[in-house]
């Protein structure tokens, strides 16, 4: 495969990693984050410290990246998830921007000029393995009582409480897990680009990740996979009209919300069972319609 295409594939894999986590948070749990690029930044810098400064193996960098991001997520969760939804959005926004500003001013890690010379550890193989494990873990998580509890929180918070679900705990769980994914994605990104700079993890990056989740469909893992691959390749193919890309994204996001809020694959999965389920739901709906007619 030519190295240009390979590069895009790796980038798609890295985006997908971050998107998977965000999919759990936004798509399955119904929480909206403006700061996931911040978790990616934490992952990227942590991993770079491990491999570039301490000369430790890549895998140590990846684990440390996920772990550090998880700690930050836990702290933010503890502070804000007891409050109403807005405050969480605001906190993630503040967090993402604060992380970037701190890194900008922290000369020990290169400051705003960035940090070159991170070893090029990311490969087709290791990113592929990571993505497969990521998808597997996530789909096993959502198809368990823990995952169903997250979905219940998204669907109807009060009813979830009354059904014995500790809403704050499950929201924190979703945030921590999604931060781990973002942190790991950051580690891969750092060792793919071999150069990291705070600017790479701005608010725009956070919103782009969210856009991918929305395109793919809230509450669908296969949708997120599809979204990440398509929305990484599409801009590469459409380089000529690149400046219109975000204009179109913005308009499309509004359009999706007002017409088909659950996105392309909302709540559905492209698996044999998922397709069966879609068909069963269609039939049941039809049957219900017929029953209520006479």
């Amino acid at each position, binding site marked *: 495969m030519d190295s240009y295409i390979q590069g895009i594939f790796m980038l798609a894999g890295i985006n997908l990693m971050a998107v998977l986590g965000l999919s759990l948070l936004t798509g399955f749990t119904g929480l909206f984050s403006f700061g996931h690029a911040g978790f990616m930044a934490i992952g990227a810098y942590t991993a770079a410290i491990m491999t570039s400064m301490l000369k430790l193996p890549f895998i140590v960098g990846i684990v440390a990246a996920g772990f550090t991001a998880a700690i930050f997520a836990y702290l933010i969760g503890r502070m804000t998830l007891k409050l109403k939804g807005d405050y969480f959005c605001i906190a993630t926004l503040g967090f993402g921007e604060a992380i970037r500003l701190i890194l900008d001013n922290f000369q020990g890690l290169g400051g705003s000029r960035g940090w070159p010379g991170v070893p090029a550890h990311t490969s087709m193989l290791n990113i592929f393995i990571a993505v497969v494990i990521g998808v597997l873990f996530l789909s096993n998580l959502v198809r368990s009582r823990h995952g169903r509890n997250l979905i219940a929180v998204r669907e109807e918070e009060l009813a979830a409480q009354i059904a*014995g679900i500790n809403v704050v705990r499950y929201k924190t769980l979703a945030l921590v897990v999604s931060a781990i994914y973002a942190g790991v994605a950051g580690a891969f990104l750092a060792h793919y680009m071999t150069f990291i700079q705070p600017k790479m993890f701005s608010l725009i990056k956070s919103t782009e990740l969210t856009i991918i989740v929305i395109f793919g469909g809230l509450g669908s893992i296969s949708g997120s996979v599809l979204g990440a691959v398509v929305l990484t390749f599409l801009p590469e193919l459409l380089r000529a009209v690149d400046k219109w890309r975000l204009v179109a994204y913005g308009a499309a996001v509004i359009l999706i919300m007002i017409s088909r809020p659950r996105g392309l694959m909302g709540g559905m999965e492209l698996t044999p069972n998922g397709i069966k389920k879609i068909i069963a739901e269609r039939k049941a709906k039809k049957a219900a319609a017929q029953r209520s007619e006479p």
Partner: protein
Amino acid sequence: MSQENENILEVQGLTKRFGGLAAVSEVDFKVRKGGIIGLIGPNGAGKTTIFNLVTGVYKVSEGTVNFEGKSITDLEPYSIADMGVTRTFQNIRLFKNLSVFDNVFTACHLSATYSLPEAILRLPRFRREEKLLKEKAQGLLEIVGLQDRADVVASNLPYGLQRRLEIVRALALDPRLLLLDEPAAGMNPDETEQLMRLIADVRDRFKLSVLVIEHHMDLVMRLCERIVVLNFGIKLAEGSPDDIRGDARVVEAYLGAPAPAGGK
């Protein structure tokens, strides 16, 4: 002492103030184990507020709520549910985009103990318990006659069945006390009749105690063994249906008004 233990729920001096306004003040009542108690009163009398206080949705301003002899006054809603108290809502709150089956399946979660790693790695305990949960959810749907609609998305169910689904979702928690907030609202007489039979039936089958808010007076009078009447957040009267029917204050405050024909 033994008299005390017969009561599954004891509410004492229950008061809730919003700002300076008392929505509920100094309300006492008890629910006998296995009993069906009705909570009636005009709109705004504080009935739903009492439900919100008992289930922990609102924080109690003053007073105590004891369930099975233990205080649940300051607990979070989820731990109150965990202990065995659950409810339905006046304006049905289902997991709207999920199927009928998944609504019940989700609520069965307290019957399983497997951890997150066990779920992610698909370990044996996960498989075993997950199978049991599925059977339990299936069984519950059969009891209320929703098994052939298991795949229907909850929001596509007819109104009456949505209420039924909300009740069965509550039953999935294996509660010992069930709070029903206007279960017959918006139902026709036929559906109301079926609902009454369902409530009586699940009470016996699951050995439940029930506290019910209802505007359909005939339903309350026939179903409940005791009735608590509220007006302006204060307990006006309490007694058997016959006592209540004959109570002049109640008649004046509530029954005297033109009886609401079909809930609202």
